[in-house]
């Protein structure tokens, strides 16, 4: 077992732990901080998978912008009423998720998957190759994404505006 495999096992154990904390902690702020940890660990996995650009974007966009937005809304609303604890729900939800995880894992790891990666070239996953792919093969989705972001900005302003 080499160093990268040990690193993968440590990070995936921490990642599962952080995800469980997101779902099971009572305090919403603690949930948000656990989500930040989970997003950072996923960014580390991206870098290990030769995707440094995506890893940096993950930290900047997710752990930076989106989580600040979440924490801002949590502290803005300051929901004081604690959630009720419906025991039956937890059982059903966990059972459904367990079945889903088992079937997904069985489907995804259904033989056929290559065990060893293609030998990575020096430039694989670099910003140049990502940008080249983005601006040649995926120009139309890129432009549509910009329209989507514009719609999101306008929608957020309209929805969150105080009513006169």
């Amino acid at each position: 077992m080499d160093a990268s495999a040990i690193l993968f096992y440590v990070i995936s154990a921490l990642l599962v732990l952080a995800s469980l904390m997101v779902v099971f902690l009572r305090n919403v702020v603690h949930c948000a901080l656990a989500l930040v940890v989970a997003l950072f660990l996923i960014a580390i996995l991206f870098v290990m998978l030769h995707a440094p650009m995506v890893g940096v974007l993950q930290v900047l966009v997710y752990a930076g912008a989106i989580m600040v937005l979440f924490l801002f809304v949590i502290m803005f609303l300051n929901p004081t009423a604690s959630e009720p604890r419906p025991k039956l729900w937890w059982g059903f939800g966990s059972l459904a998720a367990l079945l889903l995880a088992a079937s997904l894992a069985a489907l995804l790891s259904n033989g056929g998957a290559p065990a060893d990666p293609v030998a990575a070239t020096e430039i694989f996953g670099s910003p140049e190759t990502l940008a080249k792919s983005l601006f040649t093969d995926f120009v139309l989705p890129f432009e549509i994404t910009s329209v989507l972001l514009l719609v999101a900005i306008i929608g957020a302003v309209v929805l969150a505006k105080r009513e006169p």
Partner: protein
Amino acid sequence: MVPLDYYLILGAVIFAIGVIGVLVRRNLIVVLMSIELMLNAVNLTFVAFSRYLGSMQGQVIVFFVMAVAAAEAVIGLAIVISVFRHRRSLDPQEMQLLKW
């Protein structure tokens, strides 16, 4: 290097944890955070496939997923703020105006 299967199983487990959060938590903000967790599990699967198949397309799609997730978080949180103003509560069970 660990085999691709391990990354896929990790992605499936994280996705299922996100599903638990969406199904059982009764706080709209935590439900939105669980959706972010599910999107990230899918991103992890995309990047793992991109690495093991030697194609850049997976990473490009992760870029788009991040943009859509940002838009989703912004609109979702705006709706949460708007709902909280009217009802003083974040419980999705109380949002039943459209319930038949």
